[in-house]
């Protein structure tokens, strides 16, 4: 007998099996990046508030953000913030000025454009953050490996 369906189960099953392709992936990525940024934002508001409420604790919080797993997470966070913005802009612009672009075929293009734009805006920041992570946490200076190094 099939297990009883619940809204949560339906949603998760829908996420995994619905074959909406580009528009569906954009929806999933928008939701995932939004929830991820919100989770970080809640932690970030509370830890930064310690500068007033419990100043001795702030240095510990910052110490955590400097750890390698967190720095990798911050590179992901940068992508999440940028992608959520670019895709949000795609949604707003399509809604307000070009609703015909909601057609599935047109969305296949706009979703890809949004992903490419987000990646272009993210990559330079991601490189700098990755460079800083290697420099501070592993004492590797990538610039020293350039042919005309500093």
């Amino acid at each position, binding site marked *: 007998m099939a297990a009883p369906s619940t*809204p949560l189960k339906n949603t998760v099953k829908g996420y995994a099996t619905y074959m909406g392709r580009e528009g569906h992936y954009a929806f999933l990525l928008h939701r995932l990046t939004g929830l991820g940024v919100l989770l970080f934002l809640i932690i970030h508001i509370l830890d930064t508030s310690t500068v007033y409420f419990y*100043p001795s604790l702030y240095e510990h919080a910052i110490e955590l953000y400097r750890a390698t797993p967190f720095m990798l997470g911050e590179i992901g966070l940068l992508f999440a913030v940028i992608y959520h913005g670019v895709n949000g802009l795609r949604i707003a612009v399509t809604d307000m000025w070009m609703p015909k672009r909601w057609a599935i075929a047109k969305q296949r293009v706009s979703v890809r454009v949004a992903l490419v734009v987000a990646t272009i805006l993210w990559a330079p920041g991601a490189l700098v953050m990755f460079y800083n992570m290697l420099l501070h946490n592993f004492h590797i200076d990538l610039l020293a490996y350039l042919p005309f190094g500093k």
Partner: protein
Amino acid sequence: MASKIKPSFETTAWRWMRYSGILLIPLAWFHVYLQDVIVGVHAINIDYVAVRLADAGWVTYNFFLLLFAFAHGMYGLRQVMFDYVHKERTRRIFSILLLIVWLVISTIGAIALAMGARPELVQ
């Protein structure tokens, strides 16, 4: 006349999502790029925060971020919740819970922003 209809809470909230979202593109992007990329976590400490929170311009900037980003996020979470919860009563309970969480955390953040950092208390 359609234009005379008073917009419902949901309509106003939807508009808030769109307008705050557009505003957050420059606000949040610049914030993350400045602090996480240009300055970087290794250069941030309580003295750095204290200098920034002594500046009325940056306090205002951060206050707008707190107001727009967190409300945008919490309303977004409410929309996600609506996808999983279909009973009107449960939706209402969760909405009120989210509202309380939003109010409490926003207040904590706003107080810290208004009062500034206290590096002299670090032990």
